[in-house]
């Protein structure tokens, strides 16, 4: 290493600030310009209430107990004559208290019916903490802001649904092929 010139450190400090000044600043002018959120941003939890079966799993798993669910049972008349009446859960209230929620996402993970989703929407500040408890209509509205799921990684495993469908299709094709082969064999000897 060559001997240090006295004052070179001082010059270096000046150079750093001068260089920074010539570059574009990194400030995001938020209210004027919306931020570009990364994929899978955890802004708010949206409810796709058509999928909800009131199984209560989300409410039970929630570490903060911030999900409120009310429901009642309705009887559905028998589908076929002579059949049995069925009972069905109807959702009365679904609310999430976002002043308690810690955005862990366990409710979304645990939902077996794909009724809860992460939405990147984040501008729902309120002046009163009580107003942070959002009811089902608001949660349903946020559903429109949920982005489509990100594309799979290259060479990733197929999603389960598609894999199952493929498997069924292959099975059906194989069965058909076998049936055709059998039919030909029967025709063959004649």
């Amino acid at each position, binding site marked *: 290493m060559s001997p240090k010139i006295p004052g070179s450190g*001082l010059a270096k*400090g*000046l150079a*750093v*600030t*001068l260089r*920074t*000044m010539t*570059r574009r*600043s*990194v*400030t995001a*002018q938020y209210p004027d310009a919306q931020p570009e959120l990364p994929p899978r941003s955890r802004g708010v939890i949206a409810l796709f209430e058509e999928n909800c079966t009131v199984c209560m799993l989300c409410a039970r798993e929630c570490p903060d107990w911030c999900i409120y669910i009310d429901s009642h049972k309705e009887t559905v008349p028998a589908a076929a004559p002579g059949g049995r009446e069925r009972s069905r859960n109807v959702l009365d209230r679904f609310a999430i208290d976002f002043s308690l929620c810690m955005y862990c996402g366990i409710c979304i993970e645990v939902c077996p019916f794909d009724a809860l989703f992460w939405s990147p929407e984040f501008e729902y500040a309120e002046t009163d903490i009580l107003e942070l408890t959002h009811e089902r209509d608001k949660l349903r509205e946020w559903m429109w802001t949920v982005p489509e799921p990100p594309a799979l990684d290259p060479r990733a495993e197929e999603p389960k649904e598609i894999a199952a469908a493929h498997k069924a299709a292959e099975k059906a094709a194989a069965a058909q092929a076998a049936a055709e082969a059998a039919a030909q064999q029967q025709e063959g000897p004649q």
Partner: protein
Amino acid sequence: MNDALDVAVRLLLVFVAFLVLPLVVGQTEHKVMAHMQGRLGPMYAGGFHGWAQLVADGVKFAQKEDVVPKDADRRVFQLAPAVALLPYLLVLVAIPVAPGSVGAVVDAGIFFALAVMGVGVLGSLMAGWASANKFSLLGGLRTAAQLLAYELPMLLAAASVAMAAGTVSLTGVLDAFEWWWVPWQIVGALVFFVAGLAELQRPPFDMPVADSEIIFGAYTEYTGLRFALFLLAEYAGIVVLCGLTTVLFLGGWHGPWGDDGLGWLWTLLKTAVLAFVVIWLRVSYPRLREDQLQKLAWTTLVPLALAQIALTGIVKVAIS
């Protein structure tokens, strides 16, 4: 009658410059500092890139309550901001901008400027002593120590120019100026500028107001307009220091071309560049510790200034 009008116009112009230039420097500091730190700085006040930020700040300061602490020395406490601010106005009067354009011709201009600038520091001392606050007192005493240490090299550097020009009049210095004075007096210029920065308590010499240690030094107890006056004094001080350095060491209205008529532009340009350097130094360097501060003055600046005087003397004798 005509003379009176002439004086009035000159003083009015100086007063306008005194009100506008510090604000321009302050706004530049906002923006330059922000961009040097990768930020944008004020963007809203006034609409276009926050040009009116300091006006808005002024309005805010004017709305604040003027509080004087119970145990403070009331009269002195209230007088201190004026004492800090007014000397810079007086110095600005004596700084020549272009041939013939000067607020008031002072024969012993250099002495006048340096002496009056020293009075400005008295404002901080008064504030520090009168506030009845330990942080203010510490800040005031640090100010005093800094003034003692840095007044000497500043004076010596200025004396070197006075020797070179053979006069202590600011216009006289500029009349005698030749371009090769800049390399000849460059060490003196650096000493003068650094010592001036220290006297203004600008970073990296802002030990007297070190906010992490003594809150805001002598200005701790001040609010509202009086506090704003102290801030204004700091920026007026920058203008005056840069103006003085321009006149003494950089040739004022002399420039490579456009000598006649454009002289004032050269003065303003050089002052602006120096003011930018003041801001640049603030952004780049950390604060000096109290002992480092004293060491820099006594072991570096004073010997350098003395060496500059010796050099000036030798060259002066060799020429004549």
